């Protein structure tokens, strides 16, 4: 039974790149930040704008949208008077690593490698089986290739 794979090997198993995203960072003021965040989210929901990788920041919210949602997002957020920055032409580097939360130090070491490679990471996050980084589209493939070389050596 040595040829059977029972459990995923430890560490990074796959690195994927997806293109065609934008990152949004809001700069919300006000006394009740939680309520203002909800206003932004309701506005997006009512405008049928889906987003992912939502994070709560001291300035409000950060999230990622598809390129196709950029124009409507700008329109509705601007019309409502919310301050925000929108970074277009972003790509997502998805680092798949089953059980990454159990492998202590792994998330930090992926971040260290990313920063050492010189790439500017706009947005980052993790789940139990993956972490992702949002970077400028033009450097995404090169950065992913560097990661693959670091992780898998000469293997493709």
């Amino acid at each position, binding site marked *: *039974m*040595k040829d*059977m*794979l*029972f*459990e*995923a*090997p*430890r560490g990074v198993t796959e690195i994927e790149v997806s293109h065609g995203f934008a990152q949004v*960072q809001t700069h919300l003021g006000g006394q009740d930040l*939680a*309520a203002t*965040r*909800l206003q932004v*989210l*309701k506005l*997006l*929901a*009512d*405008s*049928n*704008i*889906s*987003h*992912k*990788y*939502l*994070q*709560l*920041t*001291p*300035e409000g919210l*950060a999230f990622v949208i598809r390129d196709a949602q950029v124009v409507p997002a700008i329109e509705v957020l601007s019309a409502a008077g919310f301050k925000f920055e929108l970074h277009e032409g972003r790509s997502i580097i998805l680092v798949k690593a*089953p059980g990454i*939360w*159990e*492998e*202590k*130090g*792994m*998330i*930090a*070491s992926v*971040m*260290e490698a990313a*920063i*050492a490679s010189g790439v*500017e*990471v*706009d*947005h*980052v*996050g*993790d*789940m*139990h*089986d*993956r*972490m992702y980084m949002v970077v400028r589209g033009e450097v995404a493939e090169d950065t992913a290739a560097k990661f693959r070389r670091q992780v898998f050596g000469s293997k493709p």
Partner: protein
Amino acid sequence: MKIKVLKFGGTSVATVEARAAAAQRVFDARQAGFAPIAVVSAIGRKGAPYATDTLIGEYRSVNPQLEPQARELDLIMACGEIISAVIFAQTCRSLGLRATALTGAQAGLETDGRYGNARVCGVNAKRILSLLEEGCTPVICGFQGASEEDRSEITTLGRGGTDTTAAAIGAAVRACAVEIFTDVDGIKTADPDAVPNAPTLRKVSYEEVAELAHLGAKVLHPRSAEIAMRHAIPLWVKNSFSGDEGTEIVDEDVSYEHELTGITHSGKLVYLRFDLTDILADRRSEFERRLFSLLAQFDIGLYMLNLSPAGIGFAVERLQFPSAERLLDGLLIPSENEPVILQLGSPSQKVQAQQTLLGGKARPVRVEITEGCTMISVVGRSYFGRPGVFYSILSILNEDKVQVFQTADSDFSVSFLIPETETHRAVRVLHDRLVVTPKIK
């Protein structure tokens, strides 16, 4: 030969009566024409004389100041399942079954050799198959195996490892079913301690159950679901103490039966937020590189990592927080112009001493600490990706005055970092408002 693996958890073998009932299930499987294999956990839960936690406690109590040795911790933990397998094999024999107790190593389970959290890398099922051919029931110790590099070394599979053993054995012998017997009716839509009337999911996909388990549902270990998925082994979770049909875990998308699969909670976490507003942009990446390098070097596990112009945030496990605190508080990060000193919470003696030595020239980076956090998660394969999901969940939590520190999301789950004191209330309110009672087949 139709092989069925029956796994019995700690409560299912905790008493003479429970063991007799479990052995009867093995007997019934044999009578129904199956070749049964039993996989057992240690007897009982914390406080029971041979339970895993009791054995660990006994070892640690020798000298609480001494760091436990991982290898020996595995040796003592493995004893619980060995005792259980021997007792259970004898219980089976008392019903007239032929049975043989096997350690994980004797059953051929090979691991990658990592003490305390080994992964299964092979199963040599020759001995198990030979016993089955002879009409004998193997009673296998869960949670343990032998290192493939050195077969004399016992390694354990981590919490919930007996489920993993059952699935791996099931895959190796191409079992027609693996049945996990526990003390609840199956996989629930929420922890019954938080939601006592949480319904049992009758059919759920491997992916959903693995996601639930990874995010805190305790009824089945996620690695067992992943092994079963990889080898398409039918998996069931059933109650040892009732005739309930249980939960069937299948290789198909059954999310049409329930929009949301469940609400889970997990982890005792501490949230750290580094305020980097005073760090110049051109020095920030060097600061971040050094910070992550240290965290990696000292094996600090991070959860819900996030970056923003104002700073960095992440959570660490409460057990690791003292190490993280020792590592980070007062840490001086050199720089050409102005060094930076980390200050966790209010300035400690260490920070003050460093500042005195440096004549107050180090720029402090304040790190806000929020202790007593936990993570709740909403899991549902067909629920995510559409507009308004975050708004729905966050507005429910906000209405119920549950503070949310951070969020994270994946393909079919979202997680929220909240105060641990609010766990049950938050799970209950989300369950009540979001989980549609699954259709009962």
